[in-house]
């Protein structure tokens, strides 16, 4: 800690800004874990001047400085004080971050495929690791313990493919699984990844969007109440590739989803959408990262969440990094939360780092609003009954994301889920 303290003092003097030891703009004491990275070219020091996320002298302040490795031993044991785990209740993680993950992975079934294929391969297959590298300890632990990998391939130049991959969990022994989704060049497809049943699961999903491919991934976390799920979605978007990624989370006791999108060629486009609905006691966390490392790419992020019940907790952290070389970038991220009852908590942290001035646009927004008695009174005073008023507000709020799905069965299923969740508040 002595080193860190010295560092803070030096930084303070240099920037001439007041700083409180151990505090950032977010008001939390961050871990000194990534100290070494602070001096790297794109590390904490390099980006501090523009960063919203980090404060002066905090080594972990740039997302670019975050460790990545296939080897779990490269990540120190978690304490819960790390920037990317400070909101996560590690005690409820079922050991996913530290234990051997020897349990049986949930079964995976493919349906609706016409041209797409699903293979089971060894973790040594060349396609494993082709689109991503773990960005946190759980992801690396899953990598280490995954017995095999599944590879879904959408053939080049195919169009109109719409497949569903269903993970069905039947065991709460800590397990690991690995999936690679390859959308080959110029293909156009929709991949629904459905998660149901009970699990304690650390999962990596690599998403390889090859040149000119257009891929929609819809990941539904529709687990049973006791599920614990940590999932890294690691996407690589190559030249002129387009990824639309929609995360929908409402099941499980604890879900921690970290979608991460990296551009690997010009002209790529990424849309990250998310919808979550947290009930009493649920912890639903979404941490995403958009890494603009190449020129002329576009990203758009919108996550919306509703919360109800005692100790319902949602976390949304959106890291967008526009690197020096990412000229012509256009980027926007927003998170909106609607708190329906007392006792629920929504944390929302947008982090935007911009290392070049030569961009088309970049912005971020975050709002957390309450649905309260005054809203209800207002709507009811216009003749709308209480139940309808509540549904009107929540449905209207979440609809913006539901509309993005464009798969009628899933939209319907979500509408029903939202109704069911709301019925729980009525009683």
């Amino acid at each position, binding site marked *: 800690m002595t080193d860190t303290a010295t560092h803070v003092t030096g930084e303070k003097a240099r920037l001439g800004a007041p700083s409180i030891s151990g505090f950032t703009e977010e008001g939390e004491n961050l871990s000194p874990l990534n100290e070494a990275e602070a001096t790297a070219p794109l590390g904490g020091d390099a980006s501090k001047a523009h960063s919203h996320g980090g404060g002066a002298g905090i080594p972990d302040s740039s997302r670019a400085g975050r460790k990545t490795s296939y080897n779990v031993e490269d990540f120190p044991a978690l304490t819960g004080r790390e920037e990317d785990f400070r909101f996560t209740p590690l005690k409820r993680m079922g050991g996913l971050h530290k234990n051997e993950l020897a349990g049986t992975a949930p079964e995976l079934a493919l349906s609706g495929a016409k041209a797409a294929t699903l293979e089971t391969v060894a973790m040594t297959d060349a396609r494993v690791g082709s689109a991503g590298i773990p960005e946190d300890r759980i992801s690396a632990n899953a990598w280490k313990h995954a017995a095999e990998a599944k590879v879904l391939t959408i053939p080049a130049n195919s169009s109109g493919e719409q497949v569903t991959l269903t993970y069905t969990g039947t065991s709460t022994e800590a397990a690991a699984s690995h999936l690679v989704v390859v959308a080959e060049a110029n293909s156009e497809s929709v991949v629904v990844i459905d998660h149901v049943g009970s699990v304690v699961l650390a999962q990596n999903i690599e998403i390889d969007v090859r040149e000119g491919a257009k891929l929609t991934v819809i990941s539904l976390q529709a687990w049973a109440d006791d599920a614990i799920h940590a999932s890294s979605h690691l996407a690589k978007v190559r030249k002129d590739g387009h990824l639309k990624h929609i995360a929908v989370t409402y099941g499980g006791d604890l879900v921690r989803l970290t979608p991460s999108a990296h551009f690997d060629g010009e002209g790529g486009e990424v849309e990250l959408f998310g919808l979550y609905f947290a009930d009493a006691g649920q912890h639903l966390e979404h941490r995403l990262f958009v890494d603009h490392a190449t020129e002329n790419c576009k990203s758009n992020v919108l996550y919306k969440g509703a919360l109800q019940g005692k100790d319902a907790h949602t976390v949304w952290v959106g890291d967008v990094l526009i690197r020096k070389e990412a000229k012509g970038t256009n980027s926007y991220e927003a998170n909106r939360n*609607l708190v329906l009852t007392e006792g629920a908590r929504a944390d929302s942290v947008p982090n935007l780092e911009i290392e070049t001035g030569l961009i088309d646009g970049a912005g971020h927004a975050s709002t957390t609003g309450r649905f309260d008695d005054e809203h209800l009174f207002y709507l009811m005073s216009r003749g*709308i009954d209480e139940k309808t008023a509540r549904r009107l*507000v929540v449905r*209207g709020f979440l609809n913006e994301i539901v509309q993005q799905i464009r798969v009628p069965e899933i939209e319907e299923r979500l509408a029903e889920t939202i109704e069911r969740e709301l019925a729980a508040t009525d009683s």
Partner: protein
Amino acid sequence: MSTLEIKDLHVSIETEQGNKEILKGVSLTIKTGETHAIMGPNGSGKSTLASTIAGHPRYTVTSGSITLDGADVLEMSVDERARAGMFLAMQYPVEVPGVSMTNFLRTAKTAIDGEAPKLRTWTKDVKSAMEKLKIDAEFASRNVNEGFSGGEKKRVEILQLELFKPKFAILDETDSGLDVDALKVVSEGVNRAQEENEMGTLLITHYTRILRYIKPDFVHVFVDGKIAEQGGAELADRLEDEGYDRFLNVPA
């Protein structure tokens, strides 16, 4: 013709210091087609009367009655009151996140009429009502009152008044925070609604200036939770000259 009758109404609210009586025996009868202005100094209970008629949960009626054509209004829930034909234009309209104006207006209209409005005529009605109130068409796609200025919120209240066509409208300080132009636009809206629907109006205001645009048939002066004086439009003129001092200086 319909009649809204308020008889010896006593209303209290819960405060940190215990129950506080705000209305201390108010009686008032309004018939459709009539405009009643309720005037009075701040804190005299004007807005409490408005909120109580609409059924706001904060206010407790301890005695007295409110009836609409003989039906007990106090027995009705907030939404039932609206469906029975009452409308409160609020002093501080609430922002409702996630609900677009279009969706809100249609849902409310459907609830009030008991059937969905015909889509084609409804869209036209909304559009023309917005134009008359000088509300930007873009507001239709925005969320209810979200990010609207004070004046815009008041116009949107009157927009609802024109579209929902209530039997009785209670306007709670609709004039506050409006500049002269907006005041005129809003007043014209109220007058249109009154002409078209034979609406009864309870106009609550601190100032007389709105009465230049909306002519009251009756004026009631509220002081300390009671009606201290009533008369015709000429009473408002007198208040304009003298203010409320002569009511406040009388020892209780």
